[in-house]
């Protein structure tokens, strides 16, 4: 066999290979100083490549992100509570109805908003429009909100991949799905909603949210993950509210 043929065998050789298979090659190396030198250089270079491969950047939040995704998945697949348990809710529902008559309107609206937003995490609506064209998505959203297509400056770096229209606390709203972060969505409600800056019931479904208003619309960043991950994402995207 010629040296060139042995060279192609050297490319297939790996440390720890069965010696009986490699014997002809090793015999050749013992008798051909040129090939032996070439093989020594190749092995050194190969080892250097192997060493370079061993350096991988740290990803400290990866495990938490995976578990957050799994928690959401498990939540969706969890069997629903039996209907009979809902009977226990009857007194609560009755109290709430009584509350309406006693003038708890604003408080109820807040609670209703919380519930509806929480539902979005466990049952997000399927996108009515999928598109990578930002202009098209924003124009579509503006139509659903009956207003202009602009976004506030803190959302200038965010890109979307799909949108759906819905109602939140009787107001027109759109849910925009982020393009590069599967766990994040932006809910835009066509009204200025007052209340605390945290939607408490949302946290019971392993999600986080951040809510702010530009005076005309309310923006809610919905995030399927921890508060810490959400803030890391907001920082990365320059969303300062």
């Amino acid at each position, binding site marked *: 066999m010629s040296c060139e043929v042995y060279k192609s065998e050297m490319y297939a050789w790996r440390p720890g290979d069965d010696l009986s298979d490699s014997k002809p090659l090793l015999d050749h190396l013992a008798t051909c100083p040129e090939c032996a030198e070439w093989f020594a250089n190749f092995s050194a270079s190969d080892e250097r*490549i192997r060493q370079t491969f061993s350096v991988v950047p740290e990803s400290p939040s990866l495990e938490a992100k*995976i578990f957050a995704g799994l928690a959401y998945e498990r939540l969706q697949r969890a069997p629903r509570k039996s209907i009979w348990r809902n009977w226990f809710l009857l007194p609560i529902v009755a109290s709430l109805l009584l509350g309406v008559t006693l003038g708890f309107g604003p408080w109820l609206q807040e609670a209703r908003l919380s519930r509806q937003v929480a539902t979005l995490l466990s049952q997000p609506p399927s996108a009515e429009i999928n598109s990578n064209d930002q202009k098209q998505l924003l124009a579509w959203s503006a139509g659903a909100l009956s207003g202009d297509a602009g976004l506030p400056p803190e959302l200038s770096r965010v890109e979307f991949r799909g949108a759906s229209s819905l109602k939140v606390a009787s107001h027109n709203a759109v849910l925009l799905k982020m393009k590069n972060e*599967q766990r994040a969505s932006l809910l835009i409600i066509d009204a200025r909603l007052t209340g605390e800056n945290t939607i408490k019931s949302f946290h019971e479904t392993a999600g986080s949210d951040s809510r702010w208003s530009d005076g005309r619309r309310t923006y809610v960043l919905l995030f399927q993950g921890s508060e810490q991950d959400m803030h890391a994402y907001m920082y990365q995207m320059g969303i300062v509210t």
Partner: protein
Amino acid sequence: MQITDQMFNDWVRQHQRFLFGIAYWWTGSRTDAEELTQEAFLQAYRSRSSLRDVELVKGWLVGILRHCHSQMRRRTKSREEVSFDEMLYEPESRPTLSADALALHQSLEKLEERHRLPVVLFYFQDLSYREIAEALELPIGTVMSRLARARQQLHGLMKAPTKLVLMKKAESL
């Protein structure tokens, strides 16, 4: 066999670094690698009943990672491609890359797609030909010939550093 949530959680802890490393060298981007690893574990969880033998979990995960990578490529096909030279100026990667790592990333980027993953599995995980063949669902002979060809190309590419690698080497002197 029944795979409990606890078992699956243990696999996440044991193998996330392994899968992330493969995805990192395969895609050349930490962000893509994170996304790919998350998606792979999610899909693995959904299809956990398809695992025949828990001893083969690593190869099974690599198979799912491959599948997710194809989906990701299809999704981003329309997106304009960014070369690795441009990616270097992402703040995430600039300070950490050595000249060797940079040369390796650039060389991997130039390898044919069908050669890239076998090379990553061979060097990064030091998997045997048989293990690579199982993970890629290919005959062992095909894996051996692809790897020999890929290693030849990789060594050739690594010997010819780009301007950027030379600059990086000069910086480190």
